[in-house]
């Protein structure tokens, strides 16, 4: 089954590649993403923080840029946490901490292990050939989690707090605009982008998975519960 899918997608990629070269007319898609988060009481409500949403276009593939994307390891964190790239692009993982880190993934999209290295070692790199979500971890520090979002083309952006985005150089034609945030269901909007057009769109993301009230994030001890059943 997987094999069949892989072959199909490969066929699609191969067949669409000449088209990309033939058609070079582009447009601009801009807009704003609002995030609906679950409130402690009641239903969903708009969140003030709409940062970290990956807005990207599907519907065509584009070759990976020559540039190397960078995912730094600093203060026992991956920086940035979400890194959108184009399939085939190389990502460099420099270690900015003075101690060892490790970079690996067991994802079915791209499983790799760069081994352990320190900051004085040259930054190791990995080519992400297949599109998909690749969670990347450090096998020394459990809290180090990052998401490499491998996309089909370079028409993508990561929102700031206001949720605004602007995608330039989007190939004209039938495309789909997507927005995704870890813990939320992807939203998608299909549109016909005319060459040279500037389209403005509003998207609303609903965070389906809520973070339970989980203490101990800061490492402080739990307050003693009133009874052993955790009230």
């Amino acid at each position, binding site marked *: *089954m*997987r094999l069949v*899918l*892989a072959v199909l*997608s490969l066929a699609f990629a191969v067949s669409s590649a000449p088209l990309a070269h033939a058609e070079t007319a582009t447009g601009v898609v801009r807009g704003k993403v609002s995030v609906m988060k679950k409130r402690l009481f009641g239903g969903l409500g708009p969140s003030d923080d709409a940062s970290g949403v990956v807005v990207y276009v*599907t519907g065509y593939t584009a070759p990976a840029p020559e540039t190397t994307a960078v995912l730094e390891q600093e203060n026992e964190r991956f920086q940035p*946490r979400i890194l959108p790239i184009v*399939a085939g692009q190389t990502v460099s993982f420099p270690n900015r901490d003075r101690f060892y880190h490790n970079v*690996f*993934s*067991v*994802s*079915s*999209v791209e499983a790799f292990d760069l081994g352990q290295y320190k900051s004085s070692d040259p930054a190791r790199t990995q080519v992400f050939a*297949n*599109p*998909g*979500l690749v*969670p990347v*971890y*450090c*096998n*020394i*520090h*459990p*809290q180090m*989690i990052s*998401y490499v*979002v*491998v*996309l*089909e083309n370079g028409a993508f952006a990561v929102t700031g707090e206001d949720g605004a985005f602007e995608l330039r150089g989007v190939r004209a034609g039938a495309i*789909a605009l*997507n927005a*995704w945030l*870890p*813990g939320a269901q*992807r939203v*998608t909007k299909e549109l016909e982008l005319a060459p040279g057009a500037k389209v403005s769109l509003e998207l609303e993301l609903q965070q389906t*998975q*809520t*973070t*339970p*009230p*989980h*203490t*101990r*994030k800061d490492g402080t001890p*739990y307050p*003693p*519960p009133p*009874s*052993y*059943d*955790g009230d």
Partner: protein
Amino acid sequence: MAVPPRLRFRTKIWAVLCGFVFAALATALVVAQDVTISRARDESRTRFDRTLVAFSELQRLRAELLVETIDALTRTNPQLRTILSTASLAATDLGVGLAPTNDALRDANLRLQSALPSLALHQRQVIFAVASAEGELLYSKADPERYGQDLSQIELVRLIADQGRGSALWLDADAAVEGARLAPSYPSPALYLVRGEPVVFDEEVHGLVIAGEPIDRALLSSLRAITGVELALIAGPRVLATTLSEADAAGLRGKVGAFEAPALMSLGGEITELTLGGERYLALRAEIVPGRPTAQAGFILLSSLDAALAGFRDLRQTLIGVGLLILAVALGLGFVLARGITRPIATLAQAARRIGAGQFDARVAIATGDELEELGGAFNEMAAGLAERELIKQTLERYVSKHVAAELLRAPGQAALAGVRRELTVLFVDLGGFTQLAEELAPEAVVAHLNEYFEAVCGAVLEHDGTVKEFQGDGVVAFWGAPIAQPDHAVRACRAALDAAARLDALCVRWTERGVVAPSYRMGLHTAELVAGEIGSAERGTYGVVGDGMNLASRLEGANKVYGTRILISDATRARAGGGFVTRELDLVRVVGRRATVRIFELVGASGGVDARTLSVLEHYAAALAAHRARDWDAAARALEALGALDPDDAPARVLAARGSAFRTDPPPSDWDGVFALDAK
């Protein structure tokens, strides 16, 4: 004669002592037992409460440890994080690349199978399951090969999603989802306390860990070690785990149904009593999780009542021992006490019987120094008094009626023995023609007949409570009104005279039948002021009466010869006797040597005891007497003639007729006052 008593005094004392000691002992035992049981209940409740608190605390600590361990595990184990996070993200559809498949879950399961078994937490917990953030089962210790099952509908998982943590009580059936077991399939059912924790990094849930341990014998035993309370974990009719022995647990199984599911507040449950294998227990049904009652499962806490009563049993033995000792001492003392009382009493009883048998010389010697000795003294005095009185009584009864004698003895103060002047009625009785009888009969027969006569007369006198003063030849003198005052002495005397007449009449009939010439008899009664008293010398005396009236009574007795009558009474007696008698006025007489005249009457009978003919006779006689006194001799003669037609034998009528005919020929002087001089004695 000495009838043995039905119930000995000694037995009674013993019975009372025994009863008292037993009652005291029983009361003490009952009270002690009550107090002990009540205290055992209180103590048991405290220990039950402590056990539940200890269980709570133990579970809290276990839960806390579990949380810490899971937290530490997720925080320190990048492998677990990686597997959970990767599996959770595998379902994410970005719309690029390949569509999500189950391969990621299988991969996660395989990775977990290789990574988890070496963890201490995994080894320790019986239930250990891992799920993705979406609630898909990734690994279960009880069923390691299964994955992908949806756990999100399990209440515990919902709790974790809502509250960030959760705990639950799982019976075996609860510890399974479609297609996978979360708890091992033990041969015997078990109850698990399960806890779940999410794996969270940077406010993102990457999965969850569920771990749990059964509430087993080991846990209950550790609780018992703390509070000494036996525990049984029950679910429905089953006993899942218990600190009790196999046999007791089997016994408890049959009784689980008797326990009501507790109310919301388990600590307020009712303590009941039950017996297991011959040992009594106080028992309480309690919830496993306070405030979360479940009809399915619960604890039964048991505290041995017998063990609590062990101290009481020692006390009971001591009490019984002491009680028996007291009883023995009391019985000994009772015996001595009873002897001290019963022996003098037996002596007294014996002496009393002798006195009852007439042996008035019976005396007792009791020297106990208490009331019994006093009683003995009083008894002796009584015996002496009885002897004295018996002597007096015997003497008295010969002269006075038993009635009077008893009266005298009863109230000696009323008796005028020392001499008193008082109105009395005197009776003189004499037998006519007895001298002739004495000549005809042999001396023995004379005495016998004389005694029969005296018997009749004295019998009548004593019958009417008179006192026989003396016997004068064939005469008898009796009186009434002394020594006991008798206000109706004249009535009694008249009745006695009539009674004596009747007896003598009957006697005459018997004598005539015997061929003995029946004697006649005469009686005279007079009432006068007389002196009564003990008369005579110190050695020999008699209770008698003296006075002028005695003489008149004697004359009246003699006057019967003049009138041919049998009983004559003076007007004084007639006035005193009242209307209860029928009398006939006979005459007005002057006794020789006395100036005063006396009206004399014949005592005919008691009112109502006289027939109509006699009454007519008396009427005619009264008319004749009145005419005679008025010197109308003819009228008197006519009245007497009419009388004679009724009763030709009436002697007074004949006497009056003779006097009338004599006066007719030789009239009395003009100053005749109708008084007849009674000269003959």
